[in-house]
């Protein structure tokens, strides 16, 4: 398994491993010890599982106490909380993002064809209200929600559906559950470690079933009292769901997270969000101290990212990366390090490119469509970009010329996919364009299409996402002008950008290209599989996702990749999975659909100098929802 994810040069050794030791005497935070003495809480040994997971701290055993101060943006920032608490799923990523390790499941067995997964839960694990966590909770999701049309409509979450059939569950005993699919599903354990497949262990049956009509025949009166649309709406308000803020808005919802919501939860009227330790958290350190070390996590609610930057400089943020990584701020962080008393963390960029170009291969205009679909044209555009100039002027010398795919050092790195046509060679580019028959030029020196129109198109850029793109486009427009191609920068608002994609009403768009560290989890640039992300051929993605009913028929090369992808998903053997994905990358390299400017520089984060056990370098990705997998529950404040 390590081989599969090995990142070679990028491999980190964070020294954070879990070893099953047998601690007999457990310790707990002083406040909890007092509550036990007062009879308000059962003793720590009864709150912990029979065999709690033992975490080896990054640096040393910590001490209890303190509040980690962070900042939230006012709107749609629920994943800020998720990423710090970490999605507590059946599995999780190890700290260096190289393999999947046990989390709420202590261990598992996989059937030979990778269609049946038997998970062993940690016996005696408790929800944050003290109720036992058992196989019934998993079954509650699978039997009462996954297949419930009122809850998910006709579309249950895709991660639990194989060949159109949703996952089924069988309870072996209270702590053993078997999840089965109709066909092999080799990627299941990885999917469970992402932030998007936590459902099997998200909902506590004993609490959430009161909002479910199967368990509460009188649920309608609760729906009415709450003013909800239906029971599913009520359920989501009270028990949350993935990707909605309401998940963190109800302090009564039992969770399995290290910290739980207080009365100051994440709701629309919150001015501050406070989470406090979960007295039933199921992990201990190597000396038997129950985690987390830190008492509380507090988020101030800010409207403006600049205001968060000021808080960093004033030393009022203990650990944060989110909203802080605009490259223009980095010098400011270094300048004020002493005053603010913080260290600067390195977050390994998981993107393959700082600026990817997505030429619309499904272009509506037939003349442009023909040109865009010619590989030589794309090669000419790529050769016509002076990447070193852009890196020097726009990215302040950070990065090296690159296209797409896995980053160098990753096991799936494909040099052709990453480096082909990155040299600056306008002469050869012009030759290629001449070779396409685009030899006629108008008075201003621009090439003409066969129908006599100027070869000219717009490039959509969202300036609010990365202001550097607008600057870089200024240079690219000039560089392509030298090839006789007219491009204009079209700065658009984010929603319009997507609308133009949905209606197939764009010629070229710019986006950063994900998939540098997580090529198999974010394959959207090498395969048209993502309805919003595969921007070089959204209509192919629609065709793929609708089983050929919708969209446009893809190229033969893309169809071969779809077949390989299906093979990849059902392959149980990790070595073979790797080989299949290499073939996908090779097809993409030969097709040369998406190109870019440069490998993006690493991102930054900050942490208070008093906060210990924080690795100084870790991956930054959505699929590895940093800093969650570095286990914030073992961070502590030095006295």
């Amino acid at each position, binding site marked *: 398994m390590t081989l599969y994810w090995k990142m070679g040069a990028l491999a980190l050794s964070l020294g954070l491993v879990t070893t099953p030791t047998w601690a007999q005497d457990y310790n707990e935070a002083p406040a909890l010890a007092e509550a036990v003495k007062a009879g308000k809480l059962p003793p720590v040994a009864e709150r912990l599982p029979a065999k709690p997971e033992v975490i080896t701290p990054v640096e040393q055993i910590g001490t209890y106490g303190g509040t980690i101060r962070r900042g939230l943006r006012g709107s749609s920032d629920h994943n800020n909380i998720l990423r710090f608490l970490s999605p507590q799923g059946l599995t999780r990523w190890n700290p260096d993002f190289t393999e999947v390790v046990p989390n709420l499941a202590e261990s598992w067995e996989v059937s030979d064809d990778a269609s049946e997964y038997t998970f062993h839960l940690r016996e005696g694990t408790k929800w944050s209200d003290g109720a036992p966590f058992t196989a019934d909770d998993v079954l509650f999701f699978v039997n009462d929600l996954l297949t419930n049309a009122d809850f998910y*409509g006709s579309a249950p979450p895709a991660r639990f559906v194989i060949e159109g059939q949703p996952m089924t569950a069988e309870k072996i005993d209270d702590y053993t559950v078997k999840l089965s699919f109709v066909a092999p599903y080799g990627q299941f354990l990885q999917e469970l470690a992402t932030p998007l497949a936590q459902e099997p262990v998200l909902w506590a049956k004993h609490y959430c079933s009161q909002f479910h009509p199967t368990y509460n025949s009188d649920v309608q009166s609760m729906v009415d009292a709450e003013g909800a649309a239906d029971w599913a709406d009520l359920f989501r308000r009270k028990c949350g769901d993935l990707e909605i803020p309401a998940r963190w808005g109800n302090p009564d919802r039992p969770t399995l997270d290290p910290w739980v919501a207080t009365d100051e939860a994440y709701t*629309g*009227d919150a001015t501050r969000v406070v989470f406090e330790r979960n007295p039933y958290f199921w992990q201990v350190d190597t000396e038997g101290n129950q985690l987390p070390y830190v008492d509380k996590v507090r988020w101030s609610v800010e*409207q403006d990212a600049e205001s968060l930057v000021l808080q960093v*400089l004033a030393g009022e943020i203990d650990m944060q990366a989110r909203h802080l990584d605009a490259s223009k701020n980095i010098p400011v962080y270094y300048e004020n390090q002493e005053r603010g008393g913080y260290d600067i963390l390195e977050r390994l960029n998981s993107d393959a490119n700082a600026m990817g170009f997505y030429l619309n291969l499904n272009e509506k205009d037939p003349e442009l469509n023909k040109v865009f679909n010619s590989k030589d044209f794309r090669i000419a555009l790529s050769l016509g970009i002076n990447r070193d100039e852009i890196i020097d002027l726009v990215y302040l010398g950070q990065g090296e010329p690159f296209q797409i795919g896995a980053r160098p050092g990753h096991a799936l790195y494909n040099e052709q996919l990453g480096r082909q046509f990155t040299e600056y060679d306008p002469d050869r580019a012009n030759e290629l364009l001449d070779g396409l028959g685009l030899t006629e030029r108008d008075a201003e020196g621009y090439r003409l299409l066969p129908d006599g129109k100027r070869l000219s198109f717009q490039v959509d850029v969202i300036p609010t996402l990365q202001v550097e793109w607008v600057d870089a486009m200024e240079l690219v427009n000039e560089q392509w002008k030298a090839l006789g191609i007219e491009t204009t920068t079209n700065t658009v608002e984010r*929603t319009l950008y997507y609308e133009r994609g949905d209606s197939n009403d764009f010629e070229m768009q710019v986006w950063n290209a994900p998939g540098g560290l997580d090529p198999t989890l974010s394959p959207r640039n090498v395969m048209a599989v*993502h309805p919003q992300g595969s921007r070089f051929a959204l209509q192919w993605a629609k065709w793929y996702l609708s089983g050929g009913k919708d969209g446009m028929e893809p190229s033969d090369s893309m169809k071969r990749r779809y077949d390989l992808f299906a093979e990849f998903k059902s392959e149980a053997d990790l070595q073979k999975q790797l080989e299949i994905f290499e073939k996908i990358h090779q097809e993409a390299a030969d097709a040369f659909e998406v190109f870019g400017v440069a490998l993006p520089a690493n991102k930054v984060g900050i942490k208070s100098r008093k906060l210990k056990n924080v690795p100084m370098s870790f991956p930054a990705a959505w699929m590895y929802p940093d800093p969650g997998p570095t286990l914030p529950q073992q961070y502590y404040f030095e006295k």
Partner: protein
Amino acid sequence: MLLRYFIRRLLWMIPFLFVVSIVVFALIQAPPGDFLTTYVAKMAESNEGIDQATLERMREQYGLDRSLPVQYWKWISGLAVGDFGQSFEWNQSAWSVIKSRLPLTLVLMLSTFIFAWGVALPIGIYSAVRKYTVGDYVVTFFGFLGLATPNFLLALVVLYLGVRFFGVHMGGLFSDEYEGEPWSLAKVIDLYKHLWIGILVLGTAILASLIRIMRANLLDELSKPYVTTARAKGMAEWKLILKYPVRIALNPFISIIGIYFPALISGAVVTAVVLGYPTLGPLMLQSLLAQDMHLAGGILMIMCSLTVVGMLISDILLALLDPRVRYD
């Protein structure tokens, strides 16, 4: 007389707010897409796709699949009976989100109002009576400086100076120890320890014009014969000025309240965003960006109502102050 006038004005607010509600609804619907397209955009940014069927289910749940007139009717008929509808983003009622922010918004506005008028009045009188003196030039200079500097920039500068020289971030409205605590005298003091920045920033922006208005009006009056007569009769200078010309010069100064009230509300949005105030302004901005229709619409309606009330207050004050003003 006054009561009848007051009631008539209140009744006029109903058709006015109805027209406003149409404009508000149209404006919120004007940008491309709806709440769900914005939601999809956000999801895609975090590298996640959402399938079409789920989108359709949500669109139906939020009523976004209906025609615009139907959506409008659903909203306005609820609004008429005090139901602001649901916030799509938060899965909670829009009013519950708004109501917690309303009091602090009013505190900020009224405090700024009292500050600006309270400071502008004496300075305006002073600079009229002592026109073209060093003092007049100094206050005028600083007044114009405040007028010319964008609010948010001034706020950023103040915040920066706070970090640079005192090592604290002065944004927000409460210190950590008072946040979430019940109200007490200490908490109010803490509030004003933070709020003065906002009051200062918002206040300075309108100070200059208030001073100039007061100054110009008073200058007009000061040269009138009745002033000369009173002075000739030996009336004490300050008593004379305060009792006669200032009272007359006050009229435009009061009627301008109605005009500056909306300016105060809209100016407060960006400033409050920069200062991190939990007031209505930033909430309005984010709900508009998210196209969270009921929340954004509810806030805009409340802000428009406040503006109308502001106008009414200024008209009534004027009528009380000056017997020459008629009630029709």
